[in-house]
Structures are given as C-alpha cells and as structure tokens.
C-alpha cells in the first residue's frame, strides 16, 4: 500500500532526525490515534491529553521501532496504553472527588454495571461504563479493525483471552445500551441519561 510505504519512508527519515518527516508522520496519524483514545477514555479533553501523550511516546520511542510490526499496530499499542493511563488517572480523580455529586452518580453507575438492565445509557457514554479490561479490546477490534492476533500483540494477552473479552465487552455494552428497536441496528436511545455534551 502506498500509505504504508510512505509511512516507512517517513519513519526511517524521522529516525535519522528529519524533523519535517516526523511532523508529517505525526500529523498523518494524529486523528486515528485520538479516535482510539477518545473511545477508551470517553471524554474529549481527556482524549486530547491522551493523544498528546501518545504522540510524545511515539516520538521518544521511535528509535526502537524496528518495522517487525506494522506502524499502525505499534502506534495503537502506544495510544491504548496512553489512554488507559489517562483513564486510570481520571478514575483516581473520581475516587478522590467526594464532593462532586455528578461523581457520585458516575460511581453509582459503575457499581451498577452488573445490573445492566437498569442502566441504560447513551450510546456515547456506554463505553465510559465498560471496565477497562473489556474496553480496550473492543475498541481495537470494532474501531481499529485489528484482528484477534493483532489485539493480542497490542495488549500482550493470549488470543483466547482477547476473544473472550471482546465478546463479554460487546455483551456488556449491549446491555448498557438497551434493546434494539424495529429490528434494525439502531439502539433504543429513548430516556438516555446524561448525554455528554463533548460528544
């Protein structure tokens, strides 16, 4: 593919210190990586932060990229890790923000995850309420289109575990979103809770 070949050229030039090539490379992949971050962290501002950290990590580790994996897969791993880090930082903030009523609601919603039938959520926020261990595999599969082996490589998990987590993650998401109406693919979003204005 032309894009991959160009990526390879850009990567090699970047590794030699060509800043212009590096900037093109980062510009080309920013949106893709931010999309992953956004799906994992579920918030526009946090997604931007995670995407920035991912780009910085790519820059700092580009010398170690040896081309054995595809750059997209390699960068997905970095972006996923950056997003998970951001998610954990945010969760720590949530855990310590005991005066925030909205936080109480979020924590309560997380606590009710197993009671999925009563926790119908906006499709855009459903991912927020999916446990981290399921969220990343689902995003890498359904958003990024990676196959199970690639996801296993990114997340450093056995392929069987990846398969299981994707299935369970989709199942939990489906429970959070609610039943499908009129036999189509559009979930029932009537009575959704707390639509996230950032999305």
């Amino acid at each position: 593919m032309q894009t991959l070949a160009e990526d390879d050229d850009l990567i090699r030039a970047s590794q030699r210190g060509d800043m212009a090539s590096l900037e093109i490379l980062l510009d080309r992949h920013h949106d893709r990586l931010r999309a992953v971050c956004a799906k994992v962290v579920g918030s526009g501002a946090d997604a931007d932060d995670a995407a920035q950290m991912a780009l910085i990590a790519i820059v700092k580790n580009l010398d170690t990229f040896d081309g054995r994996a595809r750059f997209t897969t390699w960068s997905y791993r970095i972006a996923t890790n950056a997003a998970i880090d951001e998610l954990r930082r945010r969760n720590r903030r949530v855990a310590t923000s005991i005066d925030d009523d909205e936080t109480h609601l979020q924590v309560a919603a997380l606590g009710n995850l197993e009671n999925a039938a009563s926790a119908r959520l906006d499709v855009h926020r459903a991912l927020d309420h999916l446990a981290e261990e399921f969220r990343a595999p689902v995003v890498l599969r359904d958003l990024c289109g990676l196959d199970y082996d690639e996801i296993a490589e990114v997340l450093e998990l056995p392929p069987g575990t990846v398969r299981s987590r994707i299935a369970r993650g989709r199942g939990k998401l489906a429970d959070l979103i609610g039943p499908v109406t009129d036999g189509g693919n559009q979930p029932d979003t009537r009575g959704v809770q707390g639509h996230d204005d950032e999305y």
Partner: protein
Amino acid sequence: MAGTSPILAAYKDTTMSTERFDDEILSAIIDGEADQELVASVAADSVASARLEQLRAAVAAVQAPIPDATPKRRAASIAAAMAAATPAPEVSSLAAARHTRTEQTKHRRLNPQWIAVAAAAILLVVAIPLLVRSAGSDSADFAASTDDSTSFSAGDAGTDDAADSSEDAVDSADTAANDAEAAEAESGDAVTNDGATEESAPVAAEEPADSDEAADDAAVNTFRRADAQVVNSVEVLEDLISLGSIVPELTAEQVLAEGVTPECVDQLEIDAGATFALAFLDPFGGGPRLVLIGFNADGTTTTLDAEDCSPLG
C-alpha cells in the same frame, strides 16, 4: 407484569438464550468466524437473533464517529510531540538553570518586588551584622536571627541543625546579595546606599570566579531546605529564581515537553497563556523532585509535585 420492566424481561430472555448461544458465539458471528450452520441456527432462534442485533448495535456504537479535536488543540498536541523530539532545556542542572536565569535577567524589566527582595538581602548581609556587632552579640546569634527572618530558609529552620542552618542562611543571603547587585548593575539603577554596598562590592569583585559555585551551593542549600509552604509564596519564588534553582516563565508546551503530564497542567487551573515554573526542590527531605508551579491570576501560586500532580503545601 407489575414489577417487571420490558427491559428486564428482555434481559432475562437474553440470559436464557446464552445457554445455547452465548455472547462469545454470537460475537464470533459478527467477526465472520462462525460457520454457516451456526449462523443458520442462530437465525432460527428468535431470542438469539435479538441478542445478535444487540451486539451489532454495540459494535455500531463503538464505531460511531467522534468530533475531531479542535485545530488549535490538534496543533498543540503535535507541537508538544515535536518539542519532545528536540533536546529539552536541562532544568535538572543548576548551572544550566542559572544560565537561563541570567539570560532572562538581562532582559527583565525593573521589578519593584525584585528590588525589594534585593534590598532585603543586602540589609540582611550588611546592616544586621553591623547592628549585631554594635550590640556585642556573637555570630551564632546573628546567624540564628538571620535564619529566622529569611523567608526562603524559614521552612525547616526549626528542625535543621542550628550550625548548618546558620551557615546556609549566610551563604544564601550572600548569594542573594550578589545577585541583587548584579541585577541592579544590569538595570543601571543604583540603589541609594549608605556605604553598605561599597562594603559588600569588593567581596564580589575579589571572588568573581567563585561566585557561580557559591550561588549553586546556596541554591542547593536553599531548595533542600525550602518546604512546600515556603515555596508557595511569590517572594520566595523570586529568591529561588534568583538562585537558579527554578526555571521560570515557561509556557505550557515547554512544561509538557519536560515530561509534565497535561493533568498536572490542567490541575493548576490557571488562565490559558499563563506561565509556569519548573524547579527541582526537596520539599519533604526525601530527595529533590521536579515541581511545577503555576502563577494564578490573583497573584498566588500553586505548586504541584510534577511526578504525581499532588499538591505541595
């Protein structure tokens, strides 16, 4: 039907369905990994088919497009990454920090607050000894009183070894005085004096080669003894900047390029375009750590441990 919502009923139905076709099987169908016989079996099962549609809806939700980053934020992210690719200023080096400070001092406009700090330092170095000598006090008493009254050493003054603290205080004050004189000379604004400057000036002139080292030593002593409460004052920040242990006037991008997380920057909640300072301080005696200082609009400062964003002081 009382007490059982349609949603819950559907959920229970789905749970029952998983006895035959669990989510893993249905998920495999979505991923095209199931054989035709299995697909046909699921299609013939109304509950399984409904669940399959639910799972497909979940996939669609994940695939739903999201708004792009704003052009400004997008550019900032790329710029921060590009900055990380270039050699960053060595803020961990006191010598480098001091050089940075010197360059900035050359361009710094006359600041009344800075003059006040410098004047106070000169007062400590020159006037108080004269008073002490005239009162017949010994040098230890002088050092103790200086330590108590010097803001940047006040943090641990009560816990440090008295002799060490006294020496440190004198070193710090000496350096502050030298720096103050340098700043005044650069600004071309002579301090009205009564001979005190004339008395201290030869000291600086006699030991120009040692002044940098002395300043670094003083800076080390100062930041090792400065606690978080002390750092949270503009006056002490000025002192620490003058000693080179703080690199001031950094932009958000420069701070991020130094490895400070965006969360830390966000946590300071200061206005966009405001400046930050990075410092290596030892607020609790556990070893120097990188500290991020934000300058608030109301003139106060907020200090965070740059490693974990925890507030200091």
